[in-house]
């Protein structure tokens, strides 16, 4: 069937209107192409895959006891950050500040948890992590594992950890400070900014809570 021909034949006023239709038609075609490709590329099935280039699955010792499997975080927006217990300046500050923020968000009816993964698994044993994390909000969980497990997680999260030897024979770590935000689908949603004040950080958390493919 030659519809354009029919239209042409019955259209009394050819000109701008018809070329306009043509543009709209081409645009619709292009749009359909984009949507189609996107849908085709979207993963199917019940298992939310790693759509992010940052992050990945893990199974690590929890400071709350037992093993935490990241699969249990599915459906829950959450935060992840890295550090170590022999970090005197930044880590305790971030832990305390983040704990206060999440408690504040909790009072507003929200519920977002944060997971603190040590980059110093040799020294940060599960027992030490449990003792250490008790100083902070219950909404924070400390995680540790074998050096191999931690190295794998750090790689997946693109977190850097570099040992700096100290004069006394000890070492300290240089490491990524970012607090990673993940939406309910496990998609990386950018860094949480703790330096700009709690009002803005709470805004980020609210946005995170409503983000995700299913929303």
């Amino acid at each position, binding site marked *: 069937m030659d519809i354009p021909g029919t239209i042409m034949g019955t259209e009394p006023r050819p000109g701008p209107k018809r070329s306009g239709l043509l543009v709209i038609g081409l645009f619709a075609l292009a749009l359909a192409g984009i949507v189609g490709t996107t849908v085709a590329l979207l993963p199917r099935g019940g298992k939310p895959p790693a759509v992010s280039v940052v992050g990945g699955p893990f199974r690590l010792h929890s400071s709350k006891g037992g093993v935490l499997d990241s699969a249990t975080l599915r459906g829950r927006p959450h935060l992840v950050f890295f550090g170590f*217990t*022999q*970090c*005197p*300046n*930044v880590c*305790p*500050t971030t*832990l*305390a*500040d983040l704990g*206060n923020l999440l408690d504040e968000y909790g009072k507003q009816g929200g519920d977002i948890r944060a997971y603190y993964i040590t980059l110093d698994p040799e*020294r940060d044993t599960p027992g*030490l992590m449990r*003792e*250490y*994390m*008790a*100083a*902070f909000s219950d909404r924070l969980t400390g995680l540790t594992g074998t050096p191999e497990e931690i190295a794998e997680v750090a790689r997946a999260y693109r977190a*850097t950890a570099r040992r*700096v030897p*100290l*004069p*006394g024979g*000890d070492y*300290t*770590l*240089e*490491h*990524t*400070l*970012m607090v990673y935000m993940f939406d309910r689908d496990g998609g990386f949603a950018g*860094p949480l900014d703790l330096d700009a004040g709690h009002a803005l950080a709470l805004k980020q958390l609210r946005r995170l809570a409503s983000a995700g493919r299913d929303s």
Partner: protein
Amino acid sequence: MTPRTLPALASAVVLALVLGAAGPALAQADTLKLGQPWSRATPGGAKVAAGYVTITNAGPTPDRLTGGSFDRAGRVELHTMSTEGGVMKMAPLPNGVEVRPGETVTLSPGGNHLMFMDLKAPLKQGETVKGTLSFEKAGTIPVEFTVSGIASKAPEGGHSGHHHGH
């Protein structure tokens, strides 16, 4: 600690400065003015803490902070910390920190700090811990570190801890 006790403590520090540094170091020690040395409460199991202080050199000759001691720690090192591209950088300062005449050097969270290693027990908010600061010329100066909250960015208990020498 109440704000009222701080001037007393500060005076004590000055007194300690004068009395503690005997002999040839006396003249030099007299010219270093210290703010309230402080640290922060530590989580359970923590093996390290950091010490902070401001040092003003009111004298005519440069001096250098080389280290110190902390009653609760096995040893003390001087470290520097900075943030570059979202990564925390940390390095020892083997040559210490110079305090030039007329200059004030601040050890603070997020910068140069005393690193208290091998903590024997956690630091609790509100307590004070004895220690020393060691200078190349002024010698060893006894001090008392106050312990602030775990995430404090400044010593707690008022602003009178820092006294200016002219």
